[in-house]
């Protein structure tokens, strides 16, 4: 099914024998003029692009001190080299995090360090050329900004920030990535990544309400644009559109229903994802984030809750207040913003949800920590809450749960392979290869514990796994939303169990 070699699965991560430039051909489609201009970037490669790129790099090192520190401090110790899933899966040495960083660092050295200015060859400094730019375009789109390498770097160098900076520079000289930039444009125009207009969203939500009522006999609502609601739910638009995402949305709706919450979705901010982060563009990230603020103000809500989306939660948890705050108009008794898992976890702890765990007995679960949640944010009020809360929720609604190997979970989690703006068909080869370390860990728990499903809390992870699972001998429906598990085990007030229905029919 693939026109490239799918890596073999392994019992534990193995450093591959290097294959130089084996992924040099991998490049996503370049954004057309119209997609670039929606984001205020030049439509094509600008004339004096070398100078523009070098100046932009210098500006970024002044704007972000972290970037300058990361570019200056690497001592080439090698701790990161075998930590990247794209390197492990592709064997291309340029996918070693240090090598990826050096693509940018060598230009930085040439123009912004004493040694690089006067003795470039001695310090591996190079001029900004078209070859360098092409190499950036290829290899900075083979980084999912997952930050696993930074966990193992003794200096904490974050390749994600370097890759974001590189993408920002490329956008500024007119070479943007189609996938991310087209999508951000849709958010500005329509309100979400999909381009799902209000009428279609309303129709889709109505259909879901019918389905829930058909199945449970209970009228669970998915309200849209309700002024004066207490809670605004901001969730990835994939939750409205794709499988298995939509079953997670049904789970949130059931939880809100049982809690008696007065909640709403907004058609204006019908997207939790914020691809502005992937392209390293503060301005675009801010503009997307401001939509959430505007929706919250317009609807007059007291709380904002984010649905299952990895990088959305990083932006929400880590940056929302400075991007779009202050949120002093929200109820200070609740976290601003809150994660849907925190909300559900709290209800479960207080015993407010009637759960029948046996309804998930047909499954044996494992859990995939999403990078941006594991390494870029937190949940709850205790350190490590982002690891314990999702697992506590799963264990509260399922009897069978097994974690994957220790070095592949929590803050050592392996990316799904599709994060950071790589979830596009034109990058399928690197997506499949980059999934290998996670797939190997899944295979091990499948063999050891009979795991049947992997639960995830990110729209990108869910789509990526449903696409790459079949390459590795699994099926696309083996990935599942955590809130689907919640929804399936939650007995709604007034809902009849299957046994009762049978009795009714007999009578």
């Amino acid at each position, binding site marked *: 099914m693939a026109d490239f070699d799918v890596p073999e699965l392994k019992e534990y991560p193995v450093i591959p024998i290097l294959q130089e430039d084996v992924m040099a051909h991998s490049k996503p489609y370049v954004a057309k003029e119209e997609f670039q201009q929606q984001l205020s970037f030049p439509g094509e490669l600008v004339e004096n692009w070398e100078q523009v790129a070098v100046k932009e790099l210098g500006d970024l090192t002044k704007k972000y001190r972290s970037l300058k520190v990361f570019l200056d401090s690497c001592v080439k110790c090698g701790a990161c080299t075998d930590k990247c899933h794209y390197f492990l899966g592709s064997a291309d040495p340029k996918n070693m995090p240090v090598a990826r960083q050096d693509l940018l660092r060598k230009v930085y050295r040439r123009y912004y360090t004493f040694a690089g200015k006067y003795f470039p060859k001695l310090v591996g400094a190079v001029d900004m050329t078209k070859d360098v730019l092409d190499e950036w375009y290829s290899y900075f789109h083979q980084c999912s900004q997952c930050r696993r390498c930074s966990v193992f770097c003794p200096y904490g160098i974050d390749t994600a920030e370097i890759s974001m900076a590189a993408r920002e520079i490329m956008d500024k000289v007119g070479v943007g990535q189609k996938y991310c930039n087209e999508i951000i444009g849709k958010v500005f125009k329509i309100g979400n990544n999909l*381009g799902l207009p209000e009428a279609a969203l309303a129709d889709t939500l109505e*259909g879901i309400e019918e389905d829930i009522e058909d199945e449970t006999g209970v009228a669970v609502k998915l309200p849209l644009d309700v002024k004066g609601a207490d809670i605004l739910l901001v969730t990835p638009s994939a939750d409205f559109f794709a499988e298995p995402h939509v079953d997670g949305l049904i789970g949130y709706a059931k939880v809100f229903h049982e809690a008696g919450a007065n909640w709403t979705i907004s058609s204006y901010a019908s997207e939790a994802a914020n691809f502005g982060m992937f392209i390293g563009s503060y301005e675009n990230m801010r503009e997307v984030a401001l939509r959430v603020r505007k929706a919250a103000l317009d609807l007059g809500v007291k709380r904002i809750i984010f649905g299952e989306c990895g990088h959305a939660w990083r932006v929400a948890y880590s940056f929302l207040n400075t991007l779009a705050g202050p949120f002093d108009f929200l109820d200070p008794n609740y976290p601003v913003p809150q994660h849907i898992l925190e909300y559900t976890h709290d209800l479960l702890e207080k015993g407010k949800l009637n759960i029948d765990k046996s309804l998930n007995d047909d499954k044996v679960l494992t859990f995939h920590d999403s990078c941006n949640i594991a390494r870029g944010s937190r949940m709850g009020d205790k350190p490590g809450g982002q690891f314990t809360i999702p697992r506590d929720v799963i264990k509260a609604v399922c009897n069978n749960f097994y974690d994957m190997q220790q070095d592949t979970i929590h803050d050592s989690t392996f990316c799904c392979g599709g994060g950071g703006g790589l979830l596009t068909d034109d990058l399928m080869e690197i997506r499949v290869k980059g999934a290998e370390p996670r797939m190997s860990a899944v295979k091990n728990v499948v063999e050891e514990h009979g795991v049947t499903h992997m639960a995830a809390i990110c729209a990108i992870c869910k789509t990526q796994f449903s696409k790459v699972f079949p390459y590795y001998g699994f099926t696309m429906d083996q990935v599942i939303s955590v809130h689907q598990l919640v929804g399936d085990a939650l007995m709604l007030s007034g809902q009849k169990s299957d046994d009762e229905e049978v009795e009714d029919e007999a009578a």
Partner: protein
Amino acid sequence: MPIEVNGKTLETDEEGYLANLNEWEPDVATVMAKEDDLELTDEHWDIINFLREYYEEFQIAPAVRVLTKAVGKRMGKDKGNSKYLYSLFPYGPGKQACKYAGLPKPTGCV
């Protein structure tokens, strides 16, 4: 890569989706399917026609669940699921069927 349909040359984007939605005609689907080594049956056409009707009304492809439900209603409950749709459109109903129907590709985390 442009495609040739009934003597006309139609522009497509990098991924083979029709650049101009108004240029669609049934033979566009037939030509695209031929490139994928797929023969279009009545079952395929039911899906393609539904997609076009839905797009006409809502300016977007239907969500997977909306599509499976509609198919279930029209063609029997046993067919109202993704498995059936994937058996018709192995590259995914959302993307492959949309392409044949002349709709833009769904974007985002899907």
